[in-house]
């Protein structure tokens, strides 16, 4: 997944206790493992398996994927703004490769 890129969209500054909407997108084929190539050879499954999100070191969201999730997975979810800190997004695919995005959230 070396070429995979990920994006996270969320506000930079929010009020304490606010509900923060977070949108994430990773470029990934999410190859199902069911397709065959032009010579009839099965194309190996290659999917994102896991997305974990921590806020100041504590897990706030996790998603387990299967090949039933569309290519270039988009995921939107929410969290409560507790304090100024770092949100760390880590996607892991079934080859063990990792993509990491870090976002700073300022809580006024």
């Amino acid at each position: 997944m070396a070429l995979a890129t990920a994006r996270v969209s969320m506000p930079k500054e929010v009020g304490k206790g606010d509900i923060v909407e977070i949108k994430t997108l990773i470029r990934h084929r999410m190859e199902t493992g069911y397709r065959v190539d032009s010579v009839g050879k099965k194309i190996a499954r290659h999917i994102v398996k896991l997305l974990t999100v921590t806020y100041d070191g504590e897990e706030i969201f996790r998603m387990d994927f299967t090949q039933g999730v569309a290519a270039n997975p988009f995921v939107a979810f929410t969290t409560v703004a507790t304090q100024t800190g770092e949100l760390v997004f880590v996607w892991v695919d079934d080859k063990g490769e990792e993509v990491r995005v870090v976002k700073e959230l300022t809580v006024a």
Partner: protein
Amino acid sequence: MALLPRHAWASPELRDKALNELTGGRPISDGRVTLTIPQVAENGLSVYTTVQVDSPMTPDDHVKKIHILAERNPIARLLTWHLGPRSGTAKVSTNIRLAATQQVTALAEMSDGSFWRDIKPVVVTIAACIDGG
């Protein structure tokens, strides 16, 4: 040739088996969960899906997990989201693949151990290409 995708497709029975494994056989109630998905999905390769669960999302009373299941996909359980009181709301969206016209189920597991679901039928015009097509 058990590996042929057509033979590997889920069925309502396999979906129910997956549901049973997720709940440990406990009863599932209808309600509290709202699955928002198009009635007609023109492209089964990417179907925008939102699940919202009615919950205060407090430490004592919150949604722990949400699963999406499909009865006519190669595998019954498409995804699982893990939430908690820090989620603030139980509302998550993503794009799923649907291999055929079918019923889609959203299942929520609450912190009190209860299970809730919503089921929606989806007509798929162009199925996700899963058998080499």
